[in-house]
């Protein structure tokens, strides 16, 4: 006999003008190996078919089921009910546009992030598709892969004090993306070009170092170290630019 878990879930349908944001209570008996994703699916199937939440892979890969779980952004599928208290409150991720209940639109935000960071390899090299791909040093490839593991769930953005206050702050996901291209030897962007993207208060200098991104990231990406690296790199880039421009031609 498992615990009877008390759920308090945020309900709101922005498309229904009569809908008022409110918290709704549900009870569900805990079963062995129950994740929050399983609990939500059961609540929807057994108690309330109108409950809206996102899911896809149920294995911490797609990033769809990110939500605020007892105050902390996290993935429902990675949350084991046995590690949770008997009372669980669920909210949608802040910062993002709400679709309904626990579902938010992270897609539009991330699409905009790709556009801002120009999230692709910038190169003038001609690629011959008939030839074998150019080889990359294994250590560099591993380093890039470590940052590439981002699943774009949006937890780092929802947990960020600055992102909550400034809607156009780029946040850890975007800054991590830039760090990923910086260490990629194929990307030919100059320091100046990177500076133009993130060298403002909307980029790395807006980061206040609260490290909630680092602490909530469900993939444990090394966000803290990337943010420190970028601030130093961009800080010194600014100094170099100043001394360059102030030198007589």
């Amino acid at each position, binding site marked *: 006999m498992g615990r009877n878990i008390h759920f308090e879930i945020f309900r709101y349908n922005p498309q229904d003008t009569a809908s008022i944001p409110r918290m709704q209570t549900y009870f569900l008996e805990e079963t062995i190996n129950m994740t929050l994703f399983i609990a939500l699916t059961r609540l929807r199937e057994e108690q309330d078919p109108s409950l809206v939440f996102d899911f896809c892979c149920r294995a911490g890969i797609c990033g769809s089921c990110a939500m605020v779980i007892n*105050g902390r952004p996290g993935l429902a599928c990675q949350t084991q009910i046995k590690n949770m208290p008997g009372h669980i409150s669920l909210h949608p991720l802040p910062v993002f546009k709400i679709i309904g209940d626990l579902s938010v639109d992270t897609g539009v935000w991330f699409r905009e992030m790709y556009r801002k960071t120009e999230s692709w390899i910038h190169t003038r090299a001609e690629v011959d598709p008939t030839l074998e791909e150019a080889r990359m040093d294994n250590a560099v490839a591993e380093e890039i892969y470590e940052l590439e593991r981002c699943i774009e769930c949006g937890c780092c953005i929802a947990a960020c004090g600055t992102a*909550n*206050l400034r809607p156009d702050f780029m946040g850890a996901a975007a800054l991590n993306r830039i760090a990923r291209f910086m260490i990629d030897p194929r990307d030919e962007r100059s320091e100046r070009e990177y500076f133009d993207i993130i*060298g403002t208060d909307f980029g790395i*200098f807006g980061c*206040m*170092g609260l490290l909630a991104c680092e602490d909530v990231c469900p993939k444990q990406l*090394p966000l803290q170290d990337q943010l420190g690296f970028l601030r130093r790199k*961009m800080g010194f880039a600014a100094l170099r630019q100043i001394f360059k421009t102030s030198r007589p031609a």
Partner: protein
Amino acid sequence: MAGTATMLYAHPQAHPRRDACLDWLQMITGACLVIFMWCHMLLVSSVLVGPALMDAIAWFFEATYLVQAGGPVIFVCFLAHFILAARKIPFTAGDQEIAWTHARMLRHRDTWLWMVQMVTAMFILVMGAIHMWVVLNDLPITAERSAARVASGGWLWFYFILLPLAELHVSVGAYRIGVKWGFISRQNRPKAKRIELCMFVVFMVIGVGTLLVFNHMATVLSAGRGV
């Protein structure tokens, strides 16, 4: 970005390196004030060893004009640091609500420490300015004068409030500089947190001890004069 993410943002800047420069200045003024506060603590806590030592150190700083020149410089640094850091402080009622709701929701130590920095900053701005004005208008600095001030009026309570606020702000600020500029990495962050806490506790103990010694000194001195 809720609801507005599809908009194109244009942020025309008169100076492309403005934010970088302001961030550097915020860090540099902050670091200078942290170092100053540690030196300041060394000076005043030297009274724990003996008033003669404190007088000797104070005399050295004055004979070399470090107080007369350095005092106003620190005051400017103090105001500049406030203005620079205030760029990030949510001042409007709406932003305050977002910040407090966010901190309460997240229950995250480093986010709460930022709220602490924000609140202590406001008190330090006023109380620190009062303290600097009073001290710099009553030179030279001697153990006896400091003791007399601490023991007069409500000054002991004034300093009992200012001390923890300043020490909190200094230790959290030092930790934050380390995090933001990458001196503190994921690997050494737990250690840095412990150091931050230790620094706060040690400086609080020394600070409270110093205030009590000043207060005691003043009592002894006035008794000696038969006041």
